[in-house]
């Protein structure tokens, strides 16, 4: 099959080999930048030159963004080489998202011009004393002649120093007012602020992504004209919550790239390391572990691809879909990395003995993905608040077509419609699961049926939880965690049934192989009884890895070109 995402393939292949130390974007160079805590400036310039910024700008504004899955995928391809670079570069999409969601025509056009010219855009939500609790934002925007004056500190912020622009959430209402209508968004052009009103805070040293520009911004009465206001005054929080739906899905691309890279490093190691008179890969427990890691990656990929496509066809559900995948995908990839680190042993700890220490680096780098852009607790809390809706609705037949559309990987997508702060319809993915499972046959059917049973039980449990922000019991979070696994597995079923007829000759697809792998993994996690010997599918996946590298449900052409 031809590539689904030709732009990403073109950018990556133009970068040259990652393993050639003479290239700008090479593993050796990334390792050096990490040690020196140096920003990957030259690499980012190359990516600018190769047109990566256009991927962050909607087609309507002169960019190339028209498919959210393509955005996720290009972020994945960069992350697969180096997460620090991906985080540093792709942050611009996060900074711009609010303007794409509600900015005026003039703002969109101006911002598009800057982004296409390679100007980094930062997103300033967090403050030293306020992380998850956005309503508590203290950064103040006071009315002044000709607009507003902004005062306050944003920290820690990615590209706060390097960014030419920053989209900030500020308090326009009375200080005492806690309501959501007290907040507004501003797109600040740092380059035009008068000296003395703006100060970039020093780089904060970090555990991973050590080279990234993690710093802050202090404003003291910085002027902002009316054209800086994004959306109406008082709509800052709505806009942020809408934009986060898009950015949280995008973040799964960071995790997928990390998983690709981790798996490749694990695989290379186990097929070369000789211990106890055999290659590691010949040890059954190593093969099993390797296969389980493939399944983790495939499941993360399936749900991420489905979610990003569903942004177009099930836009009204994205509030819950994005929270589910942002909680799930980074966690399952952290798990893959942790299992892999154990297999690599000392080689995931020493920085010069194996692969320039890339594994240890990606382990540190990836830990940020579960933290920023809404941490796991916040996303799970958002799902908790949807539990009554998740429990309530019927079979969702009216959404079956939209689910199928999202699941059909090569089908063109309509533009993203109106983003809603709350999914009225829960998740159609789970509601339409039984009819999708009915299309499965053989061993995959047996697993699918088991998933239907688990999903039904979860629905009953969801109905018993009471939404709350303050005193959500830990058990409700645990329920959501199980819900994530069921959701991901259900998305995988939809993707499998929608595409397998055309893909059945490909190694990961034949005999429903990848699907059986991810369902076995998910069912085991959900503590559902498994058919005898079901785990052997992991050995099958490990075997597939030796004939078709790069476990992926995407066409091979989308994963090539390194």
């Amino acid at each position, binding site marked *: 099959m031809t590539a689904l995402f030709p732009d990403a393939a073109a950018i990556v292949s133009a970068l040259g080999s990652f393993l050639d130390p003479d290239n700008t974007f090479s593993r050796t160079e990334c390792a050096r930048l990490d040690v020196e805590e140096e920003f990957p400036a030259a690499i980012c310039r190359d990516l600018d030159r190769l047109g990566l910024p256009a991927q962050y700008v909607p087609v309507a504004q002169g960019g190339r963004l028209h498919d959210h899955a393509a955005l996720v995928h290009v972020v994945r391809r960069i992350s697969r080489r180096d997460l620090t670079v991906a985080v540093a570069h792709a942050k611009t999409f996060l900074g711009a998202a609010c303007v794409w969601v509600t900015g005026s025509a003039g703002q969109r056009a101006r911002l598009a011009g800057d982004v296409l010219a390679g100007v980094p855009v930062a997103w300033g939500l967090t403050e030293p004393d306020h992380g998850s609790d956005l309503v508590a934002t203290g950064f103040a925007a006071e009315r002044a002649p000709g607009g507003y004056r902004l005062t306050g500190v944003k920290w820690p912020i990615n590209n706060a120093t390097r960014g030419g622009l920053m989209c900030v959430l500020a308090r326009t209402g009375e200080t005492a007012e806690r309501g959501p209508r007290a907040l507004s968004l501003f797109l600040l052009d740092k380059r035009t602020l008068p000296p003395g009103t703006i100060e970039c805070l020093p780089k*904060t040293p970090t555990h991973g992504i050590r080279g990234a520009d993690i710093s802050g911004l202090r404003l003291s009465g910085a002027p902002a004209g009316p054209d800086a206001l994004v959306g109406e005054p008082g709509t800052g929080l709505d806009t942020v919550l809408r934009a986060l739906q898009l950015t949280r899905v995008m973040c799964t691309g960071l995790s997928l790239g990390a998983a690709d890279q981790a798996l490749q490093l694990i695989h290379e190691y186990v097929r070369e390391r000789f*211990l106890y008179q055999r290659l590691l890969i010949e040890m059954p*427990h190593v093969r099993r572990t390797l296969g389980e890691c493939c399944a983790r990656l495939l499941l993360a990929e399936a749900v991420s691809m489905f979610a990003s496509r569903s942004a177009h066809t099930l836009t009204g559900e994205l509030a819950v879909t994005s929270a589910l995948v942002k909680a799930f995908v980074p966690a399952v990839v952290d798990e893959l990395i942790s299992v892999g*680190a154990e297999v690599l042993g000392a080689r995931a700890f020493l920085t010069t003995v194996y692969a320039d*220490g890339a594994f240890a680096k990606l382990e540190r780098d990836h830990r940020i993905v579960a933290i920023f852009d809404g941490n796991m607790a916040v996303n799970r809390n958002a799902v908790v608040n949807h539990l009554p809706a998740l429990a309530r609705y019927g079979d969702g037949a009216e959404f079956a077509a939209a689910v199928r559309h999202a699941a059909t990987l090569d089908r063109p997508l309509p533009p993203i419609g109106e983003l809603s702060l709350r999914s009225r319809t829960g998740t159609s993915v789970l509601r339409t699961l039984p009819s999708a499972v009915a299309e499965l046959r053989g061993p995959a059917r047996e697993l699918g049926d088991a998933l239907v049973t688990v999903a039904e039980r979860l629905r009953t449990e969801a109905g018993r939880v009471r939404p709350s922000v303050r005193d959500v019991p*830990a058990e409700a*979070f645990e329920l959501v965690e199980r819900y994530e696994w069921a959701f991901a597995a259900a998305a995988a079923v939809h993707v499998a049934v929608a595409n397998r007829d055309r893909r059945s000759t490909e190694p990961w697809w034949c005999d429903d192989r990848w699907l059986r792998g991810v369902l076995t993994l998910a069912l085991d996690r959900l503590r559902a009884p498994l058919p005898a010997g079901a785990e052997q599918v992991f050995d099958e996946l490990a075997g597939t890895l030796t004939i078709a590298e790069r476990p992926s449900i995407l066409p091979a052409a989308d994963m090539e070109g390194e």
Partner: protein
Amino acid sequence: MTATVTTRVDRLEQLLGDPWQPDAPLTNDVILAADERSEMSTRGEELLDEFGFGAEFVPVAYGGRLDRLDDFLTLSRAVWRRDPTLGLGHGFASFIAGVNIWAAGTPGQCRRAAGLLLGNAKLSSVYHELEHGNDFSRIEVSARPHGPDHLALHGRKAIITNVGRASALVVLARTSAEPGSRSISQILVDRAALPADGITDLPRYPTVGMRGLMLAGVDFDGYRVPAGAVLGEPGRGIEVALRSFQLTRTAMPAMAAGVLDTGLRATMRFTGDRRLYGRPVASLPAVQAELADAFTDLLIVDALAMSTARAIHALPEETVVAASATKFLGSRRLLDAMNRLSRVLGAHFYVRDGEYAIFQKLLRDLAPAGFGHAARVACLVTMLPQLPILARRAWANPPVDAPAAIYRRGADLPPLSFDALAVRTKGGDSLTGALHAAAEATAVADPRLHRLATAFVAELAALTESCATLEPRDLGPAAQPEALAVASRYATVLAASACLNVWRHERDDPFLGDPTWAVAALHRLARAGRLPVDPGLAATCRPALYIELAARFAGHRTFDLADRPLPV
């Protein structure tokens, strides 16, 4: 803890001070700064020298203070709580070398090693070769006769703690070209006393964690050592290791539990200071649950490790399996707990400066507890061939209870005897035998605990059957994952027995004698082991555990079983 160690550990704590106080002798900032420079903390090493920590590695018989393993671990944990790099680099590496000397050396060799350690010199345990990793039986460094009185060493050892600065090395080397275990010996190399011809130090290895550790390699090229330098009989190197590693494998998670203690302390500070939604993060039930769970994990690891450590005194013929189980289960639980706590700290875990910066260092430093000194699967593979023997000779027969002193802090123990340690099991397993007696005790004490204990008794019975089906190919590195799972399940049963028996033998302690923590511990183990238990049980224990944790945090006490006071 015995009375003698209480004084010592209090002195050590006072000497090192409260690392969170800016005027303490050894602050978090000093430790972090050394880490950033990839150096050992000089200040830390000086303080430990001042304490004379080297004497803690030396048996009383040779003039040191090493008397009881559990006491040694309590002292070491006080160091690991602050800085694992110091813990390994100023200590444990010498300890590993030391136990092999005490286990197999001549009195003269022991006196020499003791003298070095008492003078604060370091020993290095030189086993590992890059090509062979865990597979010690295939090492290539050789020691061949050179003239009538000498051996000449050839080959390269890599990734060795302190090899460049140790006064003496214990080197694992091939003393015969024949394949098999009888060709390998341990050799005590008195580097300080020998000419430097034929030995070259290799450059340091940079690492992501324990960045200050002096980790390097050494190249032997005809390095001459006296023929009498072999520890014990030639060709017995692996056997010596199989005995001495019982101490060191048990020790690893026991010491590293100090990391979780500080990890919890950092997270408690954060959740108390940080406000969200108009109140402290600590008031969120999900956050309290994470903290309570991590506290429970610390208690589990401590119960398992300390009971194994005391069993090394009281039941030396029965600990060869338990020690590997301790390393396997304890290290993973610590790693997982720290990972979960990192998510509570969120951005404050990720930044390398500020109040909670010590957390990210501890998280990085903890990794070797998992893969270092035997991979976790290698531990399972050590256990596997011995389990069918235990199943036949112990589990299927009327249970034998274990001495109470194994589970009771500070109770009298027989002295440590290296000779009594078994190289492989003889079939006794009082450590799970005690599970039955404890399960009986739960019947009248607490219905929840009784149900859990009964589930573990049933699990041991199920394991007895599983062991009968293990095939020969499943007893080595080529074991099927299903076979390895048997060993892993056994480790879980052993941990459950340890917790249950601590409860049973500490009934007079208001916290440990109360069933709640044991219910929490057994429930977590049962869930991990997929035993059929009510998932809702956790919710019934977490509040009480969180209250205990918060009280200990406020009262500056440790979170482990010892519940010791900390310097303020």
